[in-house]
């Protein structure tokens, strides 16, 4: 059997196929079919010849096999420093071999590559900082994932994830109606406490167009409400688009580049339709990376920039605090040791290390902020990046990966961790569930709301 019903080389494009794949609990049939999936070597080699440019070629060729990247990888560190976790080894033994063999590899080999690409690398790009040659395994694993995806060798959850994006243009089955309903519902609920609060949908020419992560309307609608409260208090002229509001990209983790492009284009279309002065994304790292850092390239924007300035939530929040649009009541600042998770996807990948700390300078009583070691662009992945968090068959490996963050947090002595990234937030929650080290974790929005010094006229009138 060259291709299965669930496990095949065709992306999920229809609702039926999506439901069918979803109903295969844990991907039992899917992985069974994968054992019989044929590798299309010609297509594989063809893709490599077309897309492997000098950067990747050179990286594969000049790697000095010096092993300096080993220690840089947190997965190497937490897995007993086994040599199989050396970044250079991981990529040479997978992508390196596929290239050497000109795509003539078999099913078992591809399955090994799949396991390596999704359970031994979170594409955190840390090793690239420590390789003297500037070889970035995170980038190369992203590339390898694309090749594997096109051949059908992708974990069940990510096949579904990118299918969700293809069918619903959201990482979960949130339709346009669901989203609009959620916004209206949240506006109504919140209005009681915040008179005059609105969640304006599809308002043209606003100052800000806000986009988010589908998990918010689906599982944490209060996050949407919190964003609304902060924009409301800050007096922003803002809007959300009814279409093109979802900025995450499981397709990026899956290596489904066609789908990545389609999703980002959808967001950019909303920008072009509503003409906001700028766009602001929620507290999510990979969503930011997908729409702002990589997205412009997927959609072919030669300047590498989104259609309007598009910033991460931490940038907006820092600005609002700096300019006094939001004021913090100093008596309500955090007065306990608190640490910060630097998300790879906007700190290492977009340098937003200082703005994040600027926010802390407003909301944490001086002396209580404790840096992780190492921090900023040298910080380690939370342990669940690159899709790792969501892949069932790699759960044991993921739990192992969480240990690095656990050690780092324990070393700070803090019980509170600020994680302005959905995925990091999830990983830290799971880490507490798994290891019970007694910590709490939070996004910035709820923390800031609790500390706001709200102007009189925005408060509800007491009868």
């Amino acid at each position, binding site marked *: 059997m060259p291709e299965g019903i669930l496990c095949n080389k065709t992306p999920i494009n229809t609702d039926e196929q999506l439901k069918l794949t979803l109903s295969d609990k844990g991907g039992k049939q899917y992985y069974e079919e994968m054992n019989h999936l044929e590798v299309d070597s010609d297509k594989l080699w063809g893709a490599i010849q077309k*897309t492997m*440019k*000098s*950067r990747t*070629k*050179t*990286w594969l*060729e*000049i*790697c*000095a*096999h*010096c*092993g*300096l990247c*080993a*220690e*840089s990888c947190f997965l*190497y560190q937490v897995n007993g*420093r086994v*040599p*199989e976790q*050396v970044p*250079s*080894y991981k990529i*040479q033994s997978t992508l390196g071999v596929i290239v050497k063999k000109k795509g003539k590899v078999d099913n078992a080999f591809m399955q090994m590559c799949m396991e390596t690409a999704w359970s031994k690398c979170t594409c955190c790009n840390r090793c*690239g*900082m*420590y*390789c*003297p*040659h*500037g*070889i*970035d395994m995170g980038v190369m694993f992203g590339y390898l994932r694309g090749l594997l995806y096109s051949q059908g060798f992708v974990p069940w959850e990510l096949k579904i994830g990118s299918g969700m994006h293809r069918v619903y243009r959201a990482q979960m089955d949130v339709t346009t109606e669901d989203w609009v309903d959620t916004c209206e519902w949240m506006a109504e609920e919140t209005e009681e406490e915040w008179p005059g609060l609105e969640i304006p949908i599809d308002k043209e020419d606003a100052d800000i167009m806000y986009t988010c992560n589908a998990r918010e309307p689906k599982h944490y609608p209060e996050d949407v409400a919190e964003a609304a409260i902060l924009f409301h208090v800050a007096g922003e002229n803002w809007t959300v688009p009814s279409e093109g509001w979802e900025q995450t990209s499981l397709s990026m983790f899956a290596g489904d580049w066609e789908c990545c492009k389609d999703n980002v284009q959808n967001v950019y279309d909303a920008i072009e339709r509503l003409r906001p002065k700028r766009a602001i994304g929620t507290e999510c790292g990979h969503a930011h990376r997908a729409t702002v*850092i*990589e997205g*412009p*390239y997927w959609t*072919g924007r*030669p*300047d*590498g*920039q989104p259609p309007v300035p598009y910033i991460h939530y931490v940038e907006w929040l820092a600005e609002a605090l700096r300019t006094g649009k939001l004021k913090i009541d100093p008596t309500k600042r955090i007065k306990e040791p608190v640490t910060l998770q630097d998300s790879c996807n906007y700190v*290492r*990948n*977009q*340098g*937003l*290390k*200082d703005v994040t700390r600027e926010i802390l300078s407003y909301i944490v009583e001086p002396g209580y902020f404790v840096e992780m070691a190492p921090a*900023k*662009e*040298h910080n380690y992945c939370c342990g669940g990046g690159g899709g790792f968090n969501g892949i069932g068959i790699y759960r044991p490996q993921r739990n192992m990966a969480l240990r690095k963050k656990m050690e780092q947090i324990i070393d700070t002595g803090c019980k509170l961790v600020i994680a302005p990234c959905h995925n990091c937030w999830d990983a830290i929650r799971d880490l507490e569930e798994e290891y019970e080290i007694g910590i709490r974790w939070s996004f910035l929005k709820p923390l800031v709301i609790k500390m706001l010094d709200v102007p009189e006229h925005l408060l509800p009138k007491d009868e």
Partner: protein
Amino acid sequence: MYDFLTGPMLWVTFLVSFGGLLVRAVMYVRGLHWQLDRVAYRPNMKYGMRGGLRSILAFIIPFKARLWRVRPGFTIIFFAFHIGLLVTPIFLEAHNVMLSKAFGFSLPTLPTMVADVLAWTCLVGGLFMVLRRIAFPEVRIITTFYDYLLIVITVMPFITGLIARYEMGDYNFWLMAHIISGEIWLLCLPFTKLSHAVLFFMSRMQLGMDYGIKRGGMKGSDMAW
């Protein structure tokens, strides 16, 4: 034989070696692809250059990048090896005598003592590189026969050169061996991993441009390499 090796053969070697490296550098740049690499090189050239230079400097200055600081032992050996490798042949007195005979100009030369020390450093450094490949599992697993071969090719001119210099055995034989091994090394430069002599700069530059343009540089946030 000597005349041939230091005459036409040397010319051919230089031509192939330096010409080849140049070709590789040019091909590297031509093979970049802004969309597939996801770096808008051209429109943001200024940011890119800045990031690229920072990235190169961080890694050619000892102890500048964090990598060099967290592994001081390796760093010392690594730099000693590379400095010996580059400086010795260029500024060696004997080489410059040849240079002035052939082209009528020469470079400043190193005192014999310094040249000796550099050459020995290089050998010892090479030895350490081999030993750590054997000793550390994380390096052993990625080491291949090819890696050893390249080290041998690289240190051969130094071994033969030192033997000739101390006039152990047949001087003429070792001199010949020295010249041949040196030419082999030069000829290997563009065709093997030794091409990192220039490709290091290209790759470092590229990643630096990436960081300088989209991964923080344009946000005014420099990468602390």
